[in-house]
């Protein structure tokens, strides 16, 4: 029995280990002890709200978030803006709707059920406006990069002068953590770029942390429910396993074989 547990465990370690070896390529990412990591991990509400502010005032100029709706902003487990706040946020965007009875498209203020307004009409327009580089949609970005939240955080802080001898084209910037170290996005954050509503000092680290938290939530909106349910499910399974173990012992005591 013990042997089986050990061997199974070793197989898992090997499995996970091989993945981590792959993940640990080149430059080590800056590792943050995120509030959403761990068995009971939760999002920091304040950080999510500030993160949304960073997204909407900085990132949203180029990056879409097409799978999110304004209603998500007030949902449980997210930034948890009040319904009124979320409605006000939605209403601040001009959404194209239609066609109406006359066959014309028209604009109206956004509603909770609307998806986040995209900064460009389409991918081609986004590329054309950004020197040929397509600013990726941010809805699932935190899951779509190796290293996840740590990667995004590191990337935001990874801008630096290129090492001697490295010549960069126009509109290309050096970043320690970018694949190939060349990125077409200029450093998006700078000291005091925005003014936080809650009075938090808007340092580059702070903004990076907040917007990364926000992006992680955007990618995994049900993370908190998942962690809570997981804990209950596993505790339940462990108790049931123990009960079944003793039942098994009792039943097998009728034959001389051991289990």
């Amino acid at each position: 029995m013990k042997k089986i547990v050990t061997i199974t465990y070793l197989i898992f370690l090997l499995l996970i280990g091989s993945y981590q070896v792959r993940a640990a390529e080149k430059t080590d990412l800056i590792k943050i002890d995120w509030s959403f990591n761990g068995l009971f991990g939760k999002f920091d509400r304040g950080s999510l709200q500030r993160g949304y502010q960073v997204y909407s005032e900085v990132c949203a100029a180029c990056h879409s978030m097409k799978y999110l709706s304004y209603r998500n902003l007030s949902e449980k487990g997210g930034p948890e803006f009040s319904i009124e706040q979320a409605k006000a946020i939605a209403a601040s965007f001009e959404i194209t709707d239609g066609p109406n009875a006359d066959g014309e498209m028209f604009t109206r203020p956004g509603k909770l059920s609307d998806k986040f307004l995209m900064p460009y009409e389409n991918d081609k327009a986004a590329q054309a406006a950004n020197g040929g580089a397509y600013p990726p949609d941010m809805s699932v970005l935190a899951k779509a990069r190796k290293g996840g939240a740590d990667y995004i955080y590191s990337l935001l802080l990874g801008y630096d002068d290129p090492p001697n001898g490295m010549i960069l084209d126009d509109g290309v910037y050096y970043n320690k953590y970018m694949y190939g170290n060349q990125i077409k996005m200029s450093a998006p954050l700078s000291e005091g770029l925005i003014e936080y509503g809650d009075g938090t000092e808007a340092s580059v680290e702070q903004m990076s942390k907040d917007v990364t938290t926000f992006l992680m939530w955007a990618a995994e909106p049900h993370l908190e429910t998942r962690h809570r349910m997981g804990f209950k499910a596993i505790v339940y399974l462990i108790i049931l396993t123990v009960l079944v173990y003793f039942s098994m012992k009792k039943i097998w005591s009728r034959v001389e074989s051991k289990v």
Partner: protein
Amino acid sequence: MSDHDYQPSSKLGKWFNDRLPLLTLSNHLAEYPTPKNLNYWWTFGGILTFCLITQIVTGLTLAMHYIADSDLAFASVEHIMRDVNYGWLIRYVHANGASMFFLAVYIHIFRALYYGSYKSPREVIWIIGMIIYFLMMATAFMGYVLPWGQMSFWGATVITNLFSAIPFVGEGIVAWLWGGFAVDNPTLTRFYALHYLLPFLILGLVVLHIWALHVPGNNNPIGIDIKKPSKDTVPFHPYIVIKDGFALLMFMIVFAFFVFYSPNILGHADNYIEANPMVTPAHIVPEWYLLPFYAILRSVPDKLLGVIAMFAAIFVLVILPWLDTSKIRSAVFRPLYKQFYWILVIDVLILGYVGAMPAEGLYLLVARVATTYYFIHFLIVLPILGYREKTIPVPLSITEPVLGGSPNPGLIKRKESLN
């Protein structure tokens, strides 16, 4: 078999059973004499049944929300993850369930290899099992294509392109598989249809697999034929049911950890980027459970030969009952085979590891050595070992002492640990 003597106690039961002997069947399943010395490696059959049912149930639910269209597939998966009630749970169970399914099937297969469960009279069980395994790989591969992420798209492109290596008709076959001149919407829709169909074929084969098992009965850690029923056996219910149940719960705890706490660790980050035919990912890597075969494929410099080697790696398993010439089933009584067995396990793990690495330099060299050894094990070592190996005397029954010869303290100790 004593099944024919079974009579339902109630009148209605008897009436029904005379017309359709379902109650006889359930009685057979409950009474089915099972060797009492089965260890926990034998619980993976039940675990695999659980995995298959889980995949079918979660898959069915996902199918109600998923849209097989190259423009909408990715968005529909995000819809499931965000807006469908507990959609994230269903999808993560399904995605990690595939990995758990393969983990269990690998343990199941390697258990059969260790205890010689594929040998006469169980060859048909083994061959059906190998067909199931092959269909599982096909199903999993097509399932990975459905979210229409970057790895979906490029994995599909790489794997379907393998068929272009077939002389003369290769290109035609690939176009036929794709339903066009590249992986595109027609490919997605047919993969979806097949991904839905194959699990039910697997289910049917599982029934045959179990049926074929119930003819000779289970092998056991000592690998000897036993009288059934006898004092060497216990009825399936409640003894094996509770033991399988216990093992299944342990398995579910591991499963739950993946689903709730690291649901994406076994996947690839690139698959959260929508498929883009214009951008090739830096490394195209299949899911972990296909990596050993991927390593074999890439270790051969010629494309056609690589494809042949990959399929041959599965085919040698199919003909394994005739490659292994030893009459002794269990590795417990085969000291040399036992060592070669563990070398094979390590060899396959190495293949899996290098399969995940770029095919260059040292990795490629290691992959080639490991591939060569894989075939040497099955095609040279096993046939010769049956004639050359000096085996340890095998006991007559699970409860009775060793047949003849001088007492072997080491064996007795080992026997005890098996009981």
